[in-house]
């Protein structure tokens, strides 16, 4: 059973990273300024690399090879939270998503670097250094745009309100939560969410943005169990368009 629990954990991390990496890469060539274009592209590469690291570990645990797993599954076989699959929208949404997701991801990787599972701990310890920079970028931009003009503040505010229920879906509890806790593999989603709320609130406090009323927010769940928005399948179709011309070919 512990094997299933571990794989479930690894799949949701790998799928989150792959799908958000893919979305972030859509900014290449069309960012609001060259510097942000480059930043999103850089983070996209990191995220893709992170997903590859976890798919590779899954492969070692008996799952399919990373290319097949990433390029050949259907939406209902994906375990990513719905937040990451939403279209990039305007820059304010992409920034807020990046802010909410990467703050959570940093905490997740910090926790996993202490995991009793040696391989997981090793990968998390290595990758958390990269996510630290993603968080620096997100927090810097949110602080700047969240205090700048009426327009930028209201755009960020609207995107924040739209994204928050989806962001709570990052922490959708897993069926295997207790097993992972008992085995010391992972601290669990609830613990992570509490720390995350504190960090998000601390950054927002330095801006003109309103603090969320955490208690009244309704989380959007389902992603961890293969339920997705209508946006995921077209993303996967596009991603696999060339690969599926000949899945056995070397590209």
């Amino acid at each position, binding site marked *: 059973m512990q094997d299933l629990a571990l794989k479930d954990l690894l799949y949701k991390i790998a799928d989150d990273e792959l799908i958000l990496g*893919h979305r972030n*890469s*859509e900014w*290449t*060539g*069309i*960012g*609001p*300024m*060259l*510097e*942000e*274009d*480059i930043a999103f*592209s*850089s983070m*996209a*590469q990191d995220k*893709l*690399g992170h997903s*590859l690291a976890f798919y590779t570990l899954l492969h070692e645990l008996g799952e399919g090879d*990373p*290319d097949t797993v*990433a*390029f050949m599954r259907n939406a209902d076989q994906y375990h990513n939270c719905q937040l990451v699959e939403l279209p990039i929208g*305007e*820059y304010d949404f992409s920034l807020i998503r990046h802010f909410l997701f990467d703050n959570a991801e940093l905490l997740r990787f910090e926790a996993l670097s202490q995991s009793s599972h040696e391989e997981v701990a090793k990968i998390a310890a290595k990758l958390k250094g990269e996510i630290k*920079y993603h968080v*620096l970028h997100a*927090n*810097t931009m949110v*602080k*700047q*745009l969240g*205090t*700048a*003009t009426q*327009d*930028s503040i209201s*755009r960020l505010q609207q995107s924040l309100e739209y994204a928050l229920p989806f962001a709570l879906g990052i922490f959708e509890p897993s069926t295997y939560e207790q097993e992972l806790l008992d085995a010391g593999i992972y601290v669990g989603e609830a613990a992570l969410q509490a720390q995350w709320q504190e960090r998000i609130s601390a950054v927002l406090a*330095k801006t003109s943005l309103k603090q969320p009323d955490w208690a009244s927010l309704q989380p959007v769940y389902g992603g961890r169990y293969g339920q997705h928005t209508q946006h995921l399948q077209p*993303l996967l179709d*596009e*991603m696999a*368009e*060339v*690969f599926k*011309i*000949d899945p056995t*070919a*070397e*590209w």
Partner: protein
Amino acid sequence: MYGGGNVFEATRFDDLQQEDPVKLAEFEARIARGEKIEPTDWMPQLYRKQLIRMIEQHAHSEIIGALPEGTWITRAPGFRRKLAQMAKVQDEVGHAQLLYSAAETLGKTREQMLTDLINGKSKYSNVFNYPAFTWADSNIISWLIDAGAIVNQMANAKGSYGPYCRALDRICAEEAFHLKYGHDAVVHMATGSPIQRKMIQEALNRWWPPIMTFFGPSDKMSTHTETLMRWKVKMASNDACRQQFLDMYVPKIWELGLSVPDPKLRKNEQGVWEYTEPDWDEFKRVINGDGPCNAERLAVRRTAEERGAWVRRALLSPKAEYVRPLA
């Protein structure tokens, strides 16, 4: 990725007569000695104008060039290619950033340059007005267009304007990786399954005519480049670049079992490549706006500028609290 195809039109050499002859002579002597000209040094207006035009066109070519290749980031087959395609296109956008900064040292702001781009006033490399229909097209661009760009940029890196040369040194180092990546991708296609081989040959057939115009019109047709070559603004003639490119890459294309869609292409006894003269009327038509993708490329750029305007305005706002990055 830039081939120097359309830089030196409409030069007004009359302006030169208004320059201080002593300073002009001193300036030309410095260049003849191989010295670099720096932003605060004296320079003729014409030199400044032509450099802005050239560096700006180069910068525009990088961001517009990111569009046909960028389309294939989200479709790249497999992790290896997806990661490489992302990194490659990101590099091109990074080159634009370097080049706009180099051009700004001559007195034109990035915002002005981008405005001129989306208004159609300033040009970019003509090849990017052609579509990348398939994944194989993006491989051909990564290999052969980047190869062409290196030929042109290596020459320009020995030019006279310091900031442009230094930017080009860095750019060429990265382009060398793109070339390896593009070549590797084309090798996989050309030696792959029948579908892959068909895809890559068709892409080469589509891209060959634009590639042949990449370095600009034949020297017989370009005028007024003498002064610019003396000033080391233009470093190699269009035909010389084209010959060098053919010499380096046609054998490599043939080696892969691919054919070049030009029955007249051959190296003669004097070691000079002969080829069917490219359709320069089409080249002019496309450069002046009537190509398959001109409208689309500029529309994408214009939309990006408009959608991102609020971000740039906000960051320039005096109220914005600038956070010192910890890194």
